[in-house]
């Protein structure tokens, strides 16, 4: 890995981290659910770029195709279908509730950070595996997915099937 | 009927959407407003609102002479103006108890059948255009231009011809009339074939038209539907057969009918009617008799121009007819 590449990764990481965080905050703070959904998409796209930087291009593509391309369209679709007016949102939480929520959120973040710190230090100084630098191609992933993790994979497909059936049963007014 | 549908849905559906289609909408051709109630992509209820093209023709006719009304009848159904002329004139002629000479009748038949073709062409074209096959409209209009040329040739106008007059025609047919009509007769069947190739068996067209807008024959009659739509419902009824006028009983032609009364049947009926019209035109064209083109009843039909210029009596007739309109005491005399 050359130095420019390394710098490049730092650059990408910092930009994308900021974008993702800002967009994520906007997701939960914006009043209009459509705009929230849009910022969530932006967060997802920036995460996909981070996946690229993390040598996981397949996951990056899947992230965009599945998350941004399908799930979020579904979200938008539902928001549009309901076509909410302002008064249908109902009242938001009270100030005190919000304050405590933010406070506990902050505490939770500190907790997580401590956990990460403790966890990482317990690994100790370790040599980075050589093969980790080689791109985790589709072949590797497929190899693992269809041998070692075949059962969970099949289970996931069953789950999807059930989800489809469930969604149709619920959304359809009369069958 | 609309009221019934509303009652059937027990609680008012909040998920339906009211869509106001028209008065100006790309597929309302002319102006029609339909208030649609949509459930997703399905129309639950449609309430038409007409009158955006209400012209008050009847009111305007109130102070016109019988002759002056003819141009107004042109503008009632402007894609089939000659047929409208004929309907009005037949009424007036029945009122006056006069009969157009045979030559005029033959020309009237030829021209109204050509008008029928032009009108059906317009239907096929715009209908296909609404379903998305834009080219058919362009082809149909191209063929219609040939017919308009014939109308222009005989009358001097492409659409609003005012060519038929009380007692016959406005002018004699010109020499080029017959060859021009013959040419249309020769080329037109191929064009119908083109439409058939483009649409009739096309899967998408079938999907869009078969089983759509079905009307049963009883409903059609109850709702006062006539013409190709009624025939597509399966009722074999044609005014040209049941109450023949202008010598339609002398021509051999078939009445095409449909089975299901859906849009596809209407389409097929109209295509077949165009072929039958060609058949009628062919027979009529072969048999145009000699003779005058108008029944010169004094006081009803304008005297010939030469007489007006030379003869004082004709001049007086001309004045009386133009200023006062035709003399209705003829009716009481008989």
């Amino acid at each position: 890995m050359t130095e420019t590449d390394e710098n490049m990764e730092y650059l990408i990481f910092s930009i994308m981290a900021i974008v993702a965080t800002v967009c994520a905050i906007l997701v939960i703070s914006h009043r209009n659910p459509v705009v929230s959904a849009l910022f969530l998409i932006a967060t997802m796209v920036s995460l996909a770029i981070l996946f690229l930087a993390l040598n996981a291009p397949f996951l990056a593509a899947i992230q965009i195709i599945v998350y941004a391309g399908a799930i979020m369209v579904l979200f938008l679709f539902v928001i549009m279908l309901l076509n909410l007016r302002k008064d249908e949102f109902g009242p938001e939480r009270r100030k005190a509730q919000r304050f405590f929520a933010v406070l506990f959120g902050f505490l939770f973040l500190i907790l997580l950070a401590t956990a990460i710190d403790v966890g990482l230090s317990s690994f100790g100084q370790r040599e980075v595996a050589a093969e980790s630098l080689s791109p985790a191609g589709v072949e590797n992933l497929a190899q693992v997915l269809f041998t070692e993790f075949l059962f969970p994979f099949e289970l996931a497909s069953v789950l999807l099937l059930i989800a489809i059936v469930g969604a149709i049963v619920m959304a359809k007014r009369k069958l | 009927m609309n009221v019934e549908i509303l009652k059937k849905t027990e609680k008012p559906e909040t998920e339906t959407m009211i869509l106001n289609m028209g008065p100006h909408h790309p597929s309302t051709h002319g102006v029609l407003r339909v208030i649609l109630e949509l459930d997703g992509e399905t129309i639950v209820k449609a309430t038409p609102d007409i009158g955006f093209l209400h012209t008050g023709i009847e009111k305007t006719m109130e102070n016109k002479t019988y002759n002056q009304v003819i141009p107004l009848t042109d503008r009632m159904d402007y894609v089939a103006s000659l047929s409208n002329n004929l309907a009005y004139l037949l009424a007036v002629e029945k009122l006056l108890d006069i009969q157009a000479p045979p030559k005029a009748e033959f020309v009237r038949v030829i021209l109204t059948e050509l008008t029928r073709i032009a009108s059906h062409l317009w239907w096929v074209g715009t209908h296909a255009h609404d379903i998305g096959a834009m080219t058919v409209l362009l082809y149909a209009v191209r063929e219609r231009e040939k017919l308009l040329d014939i109308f222009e040739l005989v009358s001097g106008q492409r659409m609003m011809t005012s060519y038929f007059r009380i007692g016959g025609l406005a002018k004699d047919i010109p020499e080029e009339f017959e060859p021009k009509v013959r040419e249309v007769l020769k080329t037109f069947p191929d064009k119908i074939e083109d439409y058939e190739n483009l649409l009739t068996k096309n899967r998408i067209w079938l999907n869009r038209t078969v089983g759509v807008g079905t009307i049963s024959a009883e409903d059609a009659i109850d709702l006062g539907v006539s013409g190709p739509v009624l025939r597509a419902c399966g009722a074999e009824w044609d005014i040209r057969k049941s109450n023949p006028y202008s010598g339609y009983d002398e021509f051999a032609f078939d009445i095409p009918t449909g089975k299901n009364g859906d849009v596809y049947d209407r389409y097929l009926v109209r295509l077949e009617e165009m072929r039958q019209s060609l058949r009628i035109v062919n027979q009529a064209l072969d048999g145009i008799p000699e003779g005058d083109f108008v029944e010169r009843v004094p006081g009803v039909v304008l005297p010939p121009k030469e007489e007006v210029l030379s003869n004082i009596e004709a001049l007086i007739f001309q004045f009386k007819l133009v200023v006062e309109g035709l003399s209705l005491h003829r009716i009481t005399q008989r």
Partner: protein
Amino acid sequence: MFYVLKTIFWAIPRGLSVTFKYLLTKPITVRYPEKRLVLSDRYRGLHYLTRNEDGKEKCVCCGLCAAACPSGCIYMEPAENEFGERYAKVYEINELRCIFCGYCQEACPKEAIFLGKEYEFSNDRREKLIYNKEELLKNGQQM
């Protein structure tokens, strides 16, 4: 099933072949401002008034054309000249009201008014489309 397949794999290519056939034929477009269609002899276009051989206008202001006109777009005021002959002091046609039915031409007992073949007279002002006698006579000279 066979019918359905036929409507897809046989009918659609046939439709395509029709459009392709016309792609290869020559367009029928008349390139209007450069080329014109030949009008019918009976074409009813812009009106014109005619004159005698000796240059007098034929119209005697009898009012038949105005009476015959379904849309009432002809207006005239009669007067007498020094020989005691009637003539139209004012003769106007509102070409925007006119529906070009040709009744005036049929009604005229003097062969004074005709509908010509001129059709290019659109304008951006309503008033300019009211043609007075001089303009109508000039139209006649151009014919």
